């Protein structure tokens, strides 16, 4: 039996970080998988939908219920096993384990007490010289691994190491009827467009819709579908509409000692040209490249003036400056620094104006400066006390292929400058995926911003990119699924859902709207 609790008014189960507020009566928080299966069986038999929620750190309302009950995985957290296969070590974790927990655990490097999924995995893992890491590093490290898989989360390191998708070895999934099955990469492959797999006493066999996803850009736009695909890829990024993830095997890699560098440049153009040169250069091998435009640095400076301990970093350089933040391997660091120095000198700066961090604490401080931008924007907007108490800013999350990077960047500036909106730009420039935060002073701004946003999204799609590169779709960005895949694409996803979840009980409003 499982316990059903009333959702109290104002309780967190109705929100996530998108600040969207939903409606819902009850919440179930099963303590093990069999309890979770029980919940699904009962709800499926009655045709009552549930919205799956974990740490509720999403930005698009994926975990927000719209009138149905909530199935929270909060009690399913912890690290249970360690194994090793041809590719390397992997960790078996429960879905609500946060990235911070995983990181802390790996830093300690004590694998005793875990189930060994292959012989001597625990002792071999402890012996890895520099320790192991799970490389995907979204801004929100308190997000659950289940949520990361469901949205194919990415972060700065996606530049060199790929998104969540590339690091998932396998998982256990509970289907809508409560049956549970385990899969790993290569186990269930489509033959052409025919996909077949068993789950419990069921056997699913169906044709995949005739659509192909963009795989060459950073993309978090729903499930990935293409001929001869791996079943894993159907579930990764599917935002819980096909099944509930109840266990994940994540691949690990050996930590490479790196040096974090934060270079300051005179203006936006010089920073962007630095980024281009860094990407083109040989021998720098950055793990990631992040960008902060002059406005972003300004906003951080402003926030630090109001609260000197806002983040634990020293006073920023005086006068306008933009910043480029990158991690490079410690090995032959001298050469790497001189390469970077000549790039910086070409762009009006130098390595002398660059901060660097080597130990974990300095690196996390540099990282926190990059991550302070969204909060600085928020504090700035709060200080404006604009006309609209609820909406202050609008953030974009679009990526384009390398070839179109310059065109997109020019389009951003033209479009935004034309409207006279106040904005700042920062983020994963290495993946051609900067975030633009538009600051809204008035209702008029809001209207303008919505229009620009639509134009920008259309342009990104036109250039072969994605309007939702890492935040997912949830309920807030469903409009762009239509823009990207067309009405037919939306219908195809709907049909797929009807096959895997005939009564539409799993996260019914994510990615595509419930058919009434």
């Amino acid at each position, binding site marked *: 039996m499982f316990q059903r609790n009333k959702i109290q008014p104002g309780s967190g189960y109705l929100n996530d970080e998108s600040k969207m507020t939903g409606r819902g009566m009850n919440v179930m928080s099963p303590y093990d998988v069999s309890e979770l299966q029980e919940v699904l069986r009962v709800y499926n038999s009655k045709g009552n939908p549930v919205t799956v929620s974990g740490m509720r750190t999403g930005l698009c309302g994926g975990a927000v219920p719209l009138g149905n009950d909530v199935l929270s995985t909060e009690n399913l957290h912890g690290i249970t096993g360690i194994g090793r296969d041809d590719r390397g070590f992997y960790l078996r974790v429960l879905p609500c384990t946060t990235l911070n927990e995983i990181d802390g655990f790996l830093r*300690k490097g004590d694998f005793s007490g875990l189930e060994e999924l292959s012989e001597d995995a625990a002792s071999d893992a402890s012996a890895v010289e520099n320790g192991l890491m799970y490389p995907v590093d979204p801004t929100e490290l308190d997000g659950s691994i289940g949520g990361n898989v469901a949205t194919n989360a990415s972060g700065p390191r996606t530049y060199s190491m790929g998104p969540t998708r590339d690091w998932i070895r396998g998982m256990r999934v509970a289907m809508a009827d409560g049956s549970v099955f385990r899969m790993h990469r290569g186990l269930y492959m489509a033959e052409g467009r025919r996909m077949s797999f068993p789950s419990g006493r069921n056997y699913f066999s169906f044709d995949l819709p005739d659509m192909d996803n963009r795989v060459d850009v950073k993309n978090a736009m729903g499930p990935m579908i293409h001929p001869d695909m791996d079943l894993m890829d159907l579930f990764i990024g599917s935002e819980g509409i096909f099944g509930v993830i109840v266990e994940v095997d994540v691949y690990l890699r050996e930590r490479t000692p790196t040096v974090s560098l*934060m270079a300051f440049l005179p203006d936006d153009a010089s920073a962007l040209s630095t980024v281009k040169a860094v990407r083109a250069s040989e021998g720098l091998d950055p793990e990631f490249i992040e960008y902060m435009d002059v406005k972003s640095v300004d906003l951080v400076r402003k926030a630090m003036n109001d609260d*000197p*301990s806002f983040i634990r*970093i020293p006073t920023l350089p005086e006068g306008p400056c933009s910043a480029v933040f990158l991690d490079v391997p410690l090995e032959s660091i001298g050469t790497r620094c001189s390469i970077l120095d000549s790039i910086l000198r070409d762009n009006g700066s130098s390595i002398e104006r*660059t901060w*660097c961090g080597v130990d974990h604490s300095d690196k*996390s401080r540099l990282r926190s400066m990059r991550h302070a931008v969204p909060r600085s924007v928020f504090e700035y907007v709060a200080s404006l006390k604009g006309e609209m108490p609820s909406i202050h800013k609008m953030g974009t999350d679009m990526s384009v292929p390398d070839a179109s990077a310059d065109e997109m960047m020019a389009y951003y500036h033209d479009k935004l400058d034309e409207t006279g909106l106040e904005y700042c730009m920062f983020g994963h420039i290495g993946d051609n995926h900067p975030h633009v935060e538009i600051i809204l002073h008035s209702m008029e701004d809001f209207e303008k911003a919505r229009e620009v946003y639509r134009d920008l999204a259309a342009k990104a799609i036109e250039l072969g990119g994605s309007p939702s590169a890492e935040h997912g779709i949830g309920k807030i960005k469903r409009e762009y699924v239509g823009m990207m895949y067309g009405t037919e694409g939306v219908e195809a996803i709907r049909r797929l859902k009807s096959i895997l979840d005939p009564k539409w009980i799993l996260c019914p409003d994510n990615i595509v709207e419930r058919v009434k």
Partner: protein
Amino acid sequence: MRFVVAIKQVPDTENMAMNDDGTVDRTGVRPVMDPYSEYALRRILESKRDGDTVSVVTMGPPQAESVLRRCVALGADSACLLSDPAFAGADVWATARVLASYMQKFECGYDCMVFGRMSSDGETGQLPFEVAGLLDVEQHAYVTDLRRDGDSMISVQDYGDVVRECSVGAGAVIAFAGVDPNGTFMDVPGFLASLESNIVTKNRVDLGLGLYSVGSKGSPTSIRRIGTVGSTRRNRKVLIKDPRRAADLVLGELEAME
């Protein structure tokens, strides 16, 4: 002038986990530079003139070398690690003995020895004055400012009720009062230079100290018993979304007092 800055490395508390029983879990925690020491070092480096030298010293395990390297990257001219398995378990007195021996043996003729106010892992700042006592030199506590006056120095000390300006005698021990919670970063040239620099290590024998002068054997004080901090309070925890209601609850508590 020759400055010697004694720095302390502390466990990286920011990235440290708690065990279930409330004690700190130190496994895998690497040492970082104590922010109070870092502040002291920076104050000295900022006032450094041509011809001055700044050396850094710390007593600690071999891993502490990375912290010293960082000091060199920040601008220190040299660094020395006092490390020996026998140093383990030292109390303040035994630590002071090691530092004082180092100063007498390897830093003869230094002008000024500098400390931070205290360390962030709970020690209460006795070390500078025990070292000063052992070296029989002047001590300047709670220093808010250290000024150069020609070839000599003037310290400004804040005792809370009195602010004093004193001239700083030869070989004096200075303990700075402040800290910069925002800390500092290395710059790249400094960092690259630090990779080349040679961190000197001295052990017990180098310092000419007997086995019974150092570490736990040389410590007059010892911990007899460790107890967790019990609480007799019956805690009631309430989650309130509405600040208005929370405020009323607190105000209710206040009124109950009156």
